[in-house]
């Protein structure tokens, strides 16, 4: 049973049998998946596939019907997770009528993070030149980075980012992915949603979603290999045609008692998240 322990010990997020209904629609219908620690996991799918609902459920702000969600070993939404998990919504959720620095100072005080964190996250998101400007006067991309900077305060162990690169120019997009990679190298787990399939190749693992169900939970290479394609968009279509999902997730392995279906998944190097803080 070593594998079993490994799988759950190495997972930042484990979702089992998640059902979410919004209004009369079954948005998520029995979803199970796992997000390994210290990795960038891409959550891809067309709009309306349930990505945001899944992210909200993981962060603990979504009312769920049934299912289990474990985040960093605790039930999603636990009080103890509020400083360890950060969520960036698709719409930048910062105050337009405050400056960049005032926004970050306020969120820092709410989080109880050290005062030096404000300068650190301004540096990391390269917002220095606009730090004294009102957020309402910034471009959409800059506002998004302010929202991201607020999420980096207090060095959370899990970052849940909903479409962080939407509408960004290619140079900024590359810089942002470099930042995500640097964070992952520090041991932070990132769950990043996107509807741009190109971005998939920058992730360590992919969760492909459609109509509230998983089409794939695998590494990028794994998905391409299973579908015999060389880009993720084609793989997505192939999986829909095939009608059978590609699930080689650590969660599956854990549920099945650890017999070797997750051969293709990377064994995440065990990192104690505390070390990186």
């Amino acid at each position: 049973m070593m594998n079993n322990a490994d799988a759950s010990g190495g997972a930042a997020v484990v979702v089992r049998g998640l059902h979410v209904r919004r209004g009369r629609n079954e948005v998520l219908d029995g979803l199970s998946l796992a997000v390994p620690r210290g990795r960038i996991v891409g959550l891809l799918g067309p709009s309306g596939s349930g990505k945001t609902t899944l992210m909200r459920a993981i962060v603990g702000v979504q009312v769920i019907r049934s299912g289990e969600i474990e985040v960093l070993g605790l039930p999603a939404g636990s009080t103890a997770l509020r400083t360890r998990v950060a969520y960036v919504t698709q719409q930048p959720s910062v105050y337009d009528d405050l400056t960049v620095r005032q926004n970050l100072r306020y969120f820092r005080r709410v989080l109880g993070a050290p005062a030096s964190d404000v300068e650190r996250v301004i540096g990391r998101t390269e917002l220095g030149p606009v730090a004294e400007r009102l957020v309402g006067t910034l471009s959409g991309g800059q506002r998004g980075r302010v929202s991201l900077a607020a999420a980096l305060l207090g060095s959370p162990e899990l970052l849940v980012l909903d479409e962080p690169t939407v509408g960004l120019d290619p140079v900024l997009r590359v810089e942002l992915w470099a930042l995500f990679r640097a964070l992952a190298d520090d041991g932070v787990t990132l769950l990043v949603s996107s509807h741009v399939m190109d971005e998939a190749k920058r992730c360590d693992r992919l969760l492909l979603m459609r109509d509230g169900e998983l089409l794939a939970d695998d590494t990028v290479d794994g998905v391409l290999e299973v579908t015999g394609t060389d880009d993720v968009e084609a793989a997505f279509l192939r999986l829909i045609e095939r009608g059978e999902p590609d699930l080689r997730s650590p969660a599956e392995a854990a549920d099945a008692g650890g017999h070797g279906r997750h051969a293709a998944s990377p064994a995440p190097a065990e990192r104690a998240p505390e070390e990186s803080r």
Partner: protein
Amino acid sequence: MTLTRTFATAGRVLAQIRHDPRTIGLLVVVPSLLIGLVAWIFTDTDVFSGIGPAMIALFPFIVMFLVTSIATLRERRSGTLERLLSMPLGKGDFILGYALAFGLLAVVQTAVAVSFAVWVCGLEISGSIWLLFAVAVADALLGTALGLLASAFARTEFQVVQFMPVLVFPQILLGGIFIPRDQLPAVLEAISEWLPLSYAIDALQAVAADSESTAWVVGKLLVIGAWIVGSIVVGSVTLRRRTP
């Protein structure tokens, strides 16, 4: 709930308002202008000395209700409330932070309105001006607290504006401005006994005429205080960390 987070929130709300000088101007000036208008309308009569105290209750109450309900609703709609509630911010920190910030504004606004009514419009106050001020501030705070509560039940800006006629107008109509409350039909008089604005208007009129003891006025103040606390508690209970 922690003091640091409550004060951080109050400071943040005030910083937002500081960046919006037009709102500050409107908040401070509008009630005084309206009181001045009422005084002008009744220049050649003695009506103003009768309803002037009630005007001090009315205009700051309405303005604070509107400003607070829209500000908190904006926070819900922009996603910042969801972000805050996914952080270690208590619901009480949020509501009290708003109440503190807008309460401070209410104090400034009321001070200007009372001064204007008394020294510019010549409203005669026979009782203690400090007591008048205390009642007026409590009343503006009541507007803030009810505004916080109303925003909890509104999904859109349109809805929250509709709450004003629902929550505020009946209190004005039954508060004893148009006709003394004891001359209302029995049912309406009984209802008016339950409305917080009635207490504020009664108290302000009593102070202006110096017709009741200080203890009686303080009794009315306590009722208003209970309404403020009640609205803040109910308002914070209605905040949800998880939403559908």
